[in-house]
């Protein structure tokens, strides 16, 4: 495992906490959640697991950890999950999509656009699964 993956995701997520005005006591824990999510994603990707599945799993982990910490620190869930999700957002793919559109390379652009959409969907689904499980836990 490359250490660059660990510290860059930790610092980047914490910096995002400042941009979103996250309360001070949630900055470090939010950063750690983002780091765990991103490290999971990179780890799964090195084992040749499809990007969409690894995004889904990482988003699920980020959301679940956020729910647990939110309960523990008595803060809204958003405070933790918002910055933690950011590294998983397919910014790079969206950029490639735009670049191919500009270069009039539509077949590649559509390919990348589809992938961007599917990955966003995977993030959504990861959040949804985690939300449903937490509701079940609360009821049970």
């Amino acid at each position, binding site marked *: 495992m490359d250490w*660059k*993956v660990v510290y*860059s*995701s930790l*610092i*980047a997520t914490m*910096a*995002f*906490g*400042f*941009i*979103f*005005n*996250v*309360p*001070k006591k949630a900055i470090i824990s939010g950063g750690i959640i983002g780091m765990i999510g*991103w490290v999971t994603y990179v780890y799964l990707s090195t084992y040749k697991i499809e990007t969409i599945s690894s995004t889904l799993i990482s988003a699920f982990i980020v959301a679940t950890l956020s729910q647990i910490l939110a309960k523990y620190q008595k*803060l*809204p869930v*958003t*405070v933790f*999950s*918002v*910055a933690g*999700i*950011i*590294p998983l*957002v397919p*910014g*790079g793919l*969206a*950029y*490639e*999509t*735009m*670049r191919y*559109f*500009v*270069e009039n390379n539509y077949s590649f652009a559509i390919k990348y656009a589809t992938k961007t959409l599917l990955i*966003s969907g995977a*993030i*959504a689904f990861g*959040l*949804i699964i985690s*939300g*449903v499980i937490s509701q079940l836990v609360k009821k049970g």
Partner: protein
Amino acid sequence: MLKLNDIMEVCLLAGKVMLSFGGETYRVEDTMTRIAKSFLIGETYSYVTPTGIFLTLQSAEKEELTKFVRIYERSIDLNKVTLVNEISRQIAIGQLSIDDAKIKLKEIENGQPLYPVWVQVVSSAIASGFFALMFNGNWNDYLPAFIAGGLGFLLFILSHAIIQVRFFTEMVASLWIGALAYFIYFYLGLGTNLDKIIIGAVMPLVPGVLITNAIRDLMAGDLLSGLARGAEAFLTALAIGAGIAVVLALF
């Protein structure tokens, strides 16, 4: 006996602050209902969309009152959302009277953000640099992404103060980021991957909060707000993409 009007005012103020600073729809409805329930015996009905709040309160004598507030400005300040959340909890356990709650909510509404602008600009610069590293850039890409991301976010804040059209300022900011990255890469000779630099520098503008809130709204059954926020996120992404596309097309 408390007046329905006073309760209404506190509920709407709490909802308004929460909604305009990035709270999810179900949380806004929950908060307003919780506050109302701690003062009233009757039913409360709320309907929250990203651009406005409807609230109906009913007293024990079946007296009813309905009001509406319009939300014009939406920004992200999760600290304010947290503070309002705490106030609603205090009201629910009876620690806060309605007049104190009103004063405190007004303070939160008009208060400064938790972190000053320069902290936000510096953190977006740092975030941009490390995002360039995260997306397989190397240390040579750190400084260009740092500069482009920081100055890009600064322009975004400055132009937002002048032009209130969000999507336009986002496009201008991403255009400026693209142009800066090009300048640093080609004329100053810094950095090895232009793509990584631009992606990293654009990240602070990416509508991450909107996306997660949109999903959470849809999940909670607030279909209309979910779709509205989704549309806002999509338009923001499109604005950023268009800004970068213009730069890519020009050079």
